[in-house]
């Protein structure tokens, strides 16, 4: 059994397929011309890729073999008349030819995450919202309990817009799910999506509740690792409370003077219960500390150790929130792509890294699938 990677870039998707040892990789490129912002695979083996264009909008392609892709009949879309967030529309949508911004309406301009749970396919989008399909993407409906959340009017976008970028589920409790929104925070439902409750206690929110990414094991779902704009946190109670977990991580000064460990992605290897982050030198610079590209791993859920063997010095690239994934094999493989188009892999939980591709466009998303 090998691994297939869908590496979403600003200009298409690079598909990597490994041999059983995860040593030799083949590469091809597809969906040329589209930003590939997320991917997923359902329980029947169908792959989905979220695509977006600044001109032609966002939708989802499907493939059964990673070769032939077709656009799904349906797509997540808001209803005509849904009221939008003016700040988001100005950040996420460029002015038209006359210099006018969109106002008033709510638009799906990007699909940030795809998530399979409870036999359904979920999409987290910006302007922030979640949609669900019960028929493999042919039709979609908004999760209204979230999309019309009572606090929505107070949600503020981050500089990447107001995006629902993280969806998690509990494999032992189909009524429980989580959603992360920049910069509105982290939410949980315990009633199958009817109601959603903010879960940010212990995480400072001076500049909006800017959760960047959250990871967990769906089979041990209440232990959550969270990369926030303002540091790294852990919860042992499903997000009810959080505590700082930065022992061993490099910290830096943020633009508002707060000191913490800044970064975007966080992923979990389930078999070893190891989490991985890529610390960057703050929100001003967003590049590796001291120009050493470094991944940090926690194996005990308490402290972090750097894993740099095989990663470059003199590196000024960043790793975006969706651009790291674990393949959930044993021993765990972890993969991440950089804003400068390099793709790195480890098959020993970070003890050694190898660049398996370079020269790709800016990497937006990475997902790994045992195949």
């Amino acid at each position: 059994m090998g691994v297939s990677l869908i590496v979403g870039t600003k200009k298409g998707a690079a598909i990597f397929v490994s041999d059983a040892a995860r040593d030799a990789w083949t590469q091809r490129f597809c969906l040329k011309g589209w930003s590939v912002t997320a991917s997923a695979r359902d329980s029947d083996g169908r792959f989905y890729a979220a695509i977006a264009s600044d001109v032609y909008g966002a939708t989802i392609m499907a493939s059964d073999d990673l070769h032939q892709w077709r656009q799904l009949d349906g797509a997540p879309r808001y209803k005509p008349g849904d009221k939008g967030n003016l700040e988001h529309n100005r950040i996420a949508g460029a002015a038209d030819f006359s210099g006018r911004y969109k106002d008033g309406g709510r638009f799906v301009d990007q699909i940030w995450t795809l998530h399979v749970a409870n036999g359904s396919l979920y999409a987290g989008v910006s302007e922030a919202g979640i949609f669900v399909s019960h028929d493999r993407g042919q039709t979609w409906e908004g999760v209204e309990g979230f999309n019309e959340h009572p606090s929505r009017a107070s949600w503020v976008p981050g500089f990447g817009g107001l995006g629902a970028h993280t969806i998690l589920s509990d494999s032992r409790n189909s009524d429980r799910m989580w959603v992360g929104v920049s910069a509105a925070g982290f939410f949980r439902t315990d009633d199958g999506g009817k109601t959603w409750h903010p879960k940010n206690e212990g995480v400072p929110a001076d500049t909006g509740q800017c959760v960047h990414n959250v990871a967990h094991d769906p089979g041990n779902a209440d232990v959550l690792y969270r990369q926030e704009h303002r540091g790294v946190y852990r919860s042992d109670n499903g997000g009810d409370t959080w505590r700082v977990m930065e022992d061993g991580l490099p910290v830096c000064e943020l633009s508002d003077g707060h000191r913490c460990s800044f970064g975007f992605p966080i992923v979990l290897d389930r078999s070893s219960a190891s989490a991985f982050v890529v610390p960057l030198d703050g929100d001003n610079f967003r590049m590796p500390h001291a120009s050493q590209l470094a991944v940090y791993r926690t194996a005990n859920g308490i402290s972090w150790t750097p894993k740099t063997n095989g990663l470059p010095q003199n590196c000024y690239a960043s790793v975006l929130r969706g651009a790291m994934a674990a393949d959930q094999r044993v021993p765990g493989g972890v993969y991440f792509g950089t804003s400068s188009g390099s793709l790195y892999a480890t098959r020993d939980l970070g003890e050694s890294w190898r660049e398996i591709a370079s020269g790709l466009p800016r990497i937006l998303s990475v997902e790994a699938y045992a195949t």
Partner: protein
Amino acid sequence: MTVRVYMPPVLRAVTGGKRELEAEGATLHDILVDLANKHPPLALHLFDEQGQVRRHILCIHASSAVRPCDFGLRRIESGDEITITNALAGG
């Protein structure tokens, strides 16, 4: 009025690889509506969920670039050729 519409390469993944499609209408806006009706996967790429033509689509017609705000005003004659293109930036 029946016209030929040349599709941008990025949308050919939606049109089954076809470089050109036929459409009918009296104005450029009508042409895009007809395309969306005949080829439903194109609809979301041409119109946003509020029913507006996506704002950075350009059409080239009669040797001039026409902007979305003028699509409803631009009259189409049978046999005209239209190219759908878009605002472009480098890099």
